[in-house]
Structure formats: C-alpha cells, structure tokens
C-alpha cells in the first residue's frame, strides 16, 4: 500500500471516529463529517446521473443533431419529448408554473400504477395464495423420518402455515368487528404476527451489530497497515500518522473528560 492510499485510509478512520463520537454527544467533529458526506453524496449522484444517465440516454442519442438547431435536426427527435417533460419537473420551483410539473409526474404515476396492477396482483397476491393451497401431507403429519415436529415440510408445519396465514389475514380485516369466533381467529393472527416480528427483531440485532463489526474491521486493518513492515512502500511516516491520530483522539477525549469534571465541580 502506498503512503497516499494510507493517508486516505487514515482519513476514513478519522471520519469513522467523528461519527462514533456522536454516541457520547453531538459535537463539531460529528457535524463536520455529517455535512461533508451530504455534499459528497450529492456530488457523486450528480456525476452518476450525468455520466450514466443523461449522456447515454439523451445526449448521445441526439448527437447527430446540431446544438445550435436545438437538436431539432437529430434523427432521434422523439427523445426531445422526455427531455422537455423532464425539464418541466423543474417548474416545481416556480409559484406560477409549478402545475406544469404535474405532467411528467402524471406520466410516471400512470405508467407505474398500470404496471403495478397486474404484476403485483399476480406476484404478491396470487402466487402467495397459490403457495398456501398446498395439499397437506397427512401421511407424514409429524415428520418424514419418525416424529420430528421441527421438520418444516411435515403436514403439521404445512397446516400451521395455512392456519397462521389465514388468521393473520383475518386480523387485518377491519370491516368486521373482532368479536366471537372471528375475534378468536384474529387473536391467533396477532400471535402469529408477533412471532414474525420477533424473528425480524432477532435478525435486526444481527444486522446492526454487523455494521459496527465492519467499522471495527476497517479500523483494525488501518492499525495493521500502520505497522506492516512487509509492505514494500512502508516508511517511518506510516506509524507517525498512526500515532498522530491516536494522540489527537486521546487529546480530545482528555479534553472532554476535563470539561465534564469542571462542569460537575461548578454545578456541585
């Protein structure tokens, strides 16, 4: 790894610590990193939209026309229509003409809604209903190889999925009061839903911890690079930068502790 790349890596660790410092309290370092990423992300998006969007989808298609004719002599003239419609979106910033932005929006909403009706009906509703209508495996009701309640393909599991899903759907049915037998089924439905949410929560814990692990891995990788003498570009500047950042962070923590203690002493 070259020194410049190591410096970038150090900056990556620095901004990681800036964001992590928010756990203690809001501070200028956090705000700096937060605002920096907003700007950089926006800049990145502009570049991506331009290079992978406007250039191949519009400019290159109109390229055989002349700009001083407004590309009206292009052989792909029809692409001026979405371009004009796209420009109309920008009228949203005008008080008098913002209604024009409804046209391209209406086109998008109409197309999206039209696509959603058959495809969502078929793939979310019909296919899931179809999956519920399986033939219950009564022959292997308690398991395929002897008694095994945790066998997910046994008849009992199939029945539980069917009954559980139906009960949960009934719970979402609010046109009839949840009373009597209907209410009991709806109660079963909320039990099933709670188990589902519990499973989601279990996975969510894993997800959140994973994010922190990644930061830990990057920080340790940086620490490793700082003292990796097998690196052909290694020099004394690597550990100097490392200790520089460590000192800076330690200094800031010490400053915060002293400020905190002083404040405490003043208030008491």
């Amino acid at each position, binding site marked *: 790894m070259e020194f410049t790349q190591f410096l970038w890596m150090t900056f990556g660790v620095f901004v990681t610590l800036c964001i992590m410092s928010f756990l203690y309290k809001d501070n200028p370092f956090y705000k700096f990193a937060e605002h920096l990423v907003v700007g950089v992300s926006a800049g990145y998006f502009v570049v991506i939209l331009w290079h992978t969007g406007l250039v191949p989808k519009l400019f290159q298609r109109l390229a055989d026309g002349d700009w001083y004719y407004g590309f009206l002599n292009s052989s792909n003239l029809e692409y001026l*229509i979405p371009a004009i419609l796209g420009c109309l979106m920008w009228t949203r910033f005008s008080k008098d003409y913002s209604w024009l932005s*409804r046209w391209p929006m209406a086109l998008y909403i109409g197309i999206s809604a039209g696509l959603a009706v058959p495809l969502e009906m078929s793939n979310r*509703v019909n296919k899931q209903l179809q999956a519920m209508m399986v033939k219950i495996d009564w022959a292997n009701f308690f398991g395929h190889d002897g008694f095994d309640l945790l066998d997910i393909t046994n008849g009992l599991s199939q029945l539980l999925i069917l009954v559980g899903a139906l009960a949960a759907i009934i719970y979402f049915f609010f046109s009839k009061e949840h009373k009597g037998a209907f209410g009991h089924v709806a109660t079963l439905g909320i039990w*099933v839903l709670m188990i589902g949410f519990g499973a989601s929560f279990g996975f969510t*814990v894993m997800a959140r911890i994973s*994010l922190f692990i990644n930061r830990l891995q990057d920080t340790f990788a940086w620490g490793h690079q700082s003292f990796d003498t097998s690196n052909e570009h290694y020099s004394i500047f690597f550990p100097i930068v490392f200790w520089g950042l460590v000192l800076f962070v330690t200094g800031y923590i010490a400053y915060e502790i002293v400020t905190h203690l002083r404040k405490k002493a003043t208030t008491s």
Partner: protein
Amino acid sequence: MRRQIPFALVFIFGFFMIFQFFVPHETSEFFYEFLLDWIIVIGIFALALGIWSLFKVSVEKIKLGKEGAQYSYVTLVGLFLMMAFGFTQKTGEGWGLYFLWIVLCGACIVALMRLRASASAGSKRMWGMMALGLLIGAVLVAIFDDAWAFYFYTQEGLSNSMFRDFFDYIMMPILATMFALLAFYIASAAYRAFRARNLLASLLLLAALLVMSRFNPFLPGAEYVAKASNWLMNVPNMAAQRAIVIGIGLGIVGTALKVILGIERGYMGKG
C-alpha cells in the same frame, strides 16, 4: 387544464400498461418499450431536483447566517469537489497543476458564499473581488495546464482516482458508521424497552431470543436451537409475513386502481 390533463395522462398511460400486459401485441410492445425508455430520461431530471434543493438550502443557510452555517461550506465544498473529480481526469502520468485548480475553485466557492452572506458594501466588494480573482486563476489553470482535461461527454471522470478515493474513504466510512450507531441504540433499547409485559410481548421476546441464540454453536444443544430457529423462520414467520405480503399486494393494487380511475389524486398537490 391544470388538473384535467394530468388526470387524463394517468388514466391513459395506466390503462395502456394494464392493456399491454394482457395483450402483448407487436404495436403495443413498441409503445411499451418507448415508454420504459422515456420514463428513465424523465427520472434523471426529476432526481436532479433533490440536488438543486440541497444546494439552495445550503446557500440560504449561509446567506441568512443561520446556526451551523459554517458547516454548509463543508457541504458545498464537498459537493463541488466530487463534481470536479467526476468530470476531470489526467491526460498522462502526472496531475500537473490540478490540485492548485481544485484549491482555487474551492476557495472561489467559499468566497462566493461569503459574498452572499456579506451585509456591508465594503465586505461585498472585497469578497466579490476575491471570488473574481480566484475564478480567473482557476480558468487560466484550466486553459493552460495540459496534464488534465474535462470530460463531459465521455466517462473518464468515473475512473479518476480522486473520485474513487472520495467514495471509498469518505462516503463509505461515514455512511457505514452512521448506521453502525444503531447497534448501540438497539443494545440500549434491549435493556430498557424489551419487556415481557403480556402474552403478545412475550411471544415476540421468545421468538427474538430463539433467532438470536442460533448464532451460538457453543450452546448445549446448539443444533437443536438452530433447527428450532429455522422452523420458526419457515413456519410461523412464513405465515405472518405471507399475510403481510398479501395485504401489501392488495393495498398496492387497490391504490393503483384508485389512482388510475382518478379517485386518489393526492399526487397532484394543491393549486
């Protein structure tokens, strides 16, 4: 006209898309492909609105000298730098005066913002002159330095090492760490809010504990726990999520039909 045309557009194109799904004739396919293509072009313009909004908000913040206005400089400089990297690339081995140009442009942006924020005529003049000087300097460097060039029509900028480094070492760590903070909030929530107050909460808690325990291969009966957790995912969880999927599906279809038929017109806003 202000409301009727959009409504008619939604109805016509919505109905056409449904019709096309069931009757995929050659002609309808032709229009279908055209529309798919067009809508992406419109989308590019629409997404750029967000960027403009961000720019406007940041500039306004600086102009009005609101609290934290100094951070808006960071946002604007970050925005500019990323754009500058994305549209430039070196032409040979070295970068020449590229970094001088970057500094001049960055300083010019700051000077322009200071100009917007200035209240007195003297300060305005000073920042104006400074911005102009920096701009002239940046233009001269851009014209006379052959080591790098602008690429608006081709994608060289995407391979600019600075563009990549900004993504890899600024965007990636910051965005990843922002979400990593959630690990701590969930730990805090775990001991403050996750209570078995009643049967429903207990079910949720037990399911969560079972799913969380499957990580531990050192637990006694770890395989059994893993199997039970797998059963939980594939049976009760599947049933619950299936009901939700069907519910969402019906919701989407219902809303889409309401939009196409003009019953739901919230997307048009007021006016």
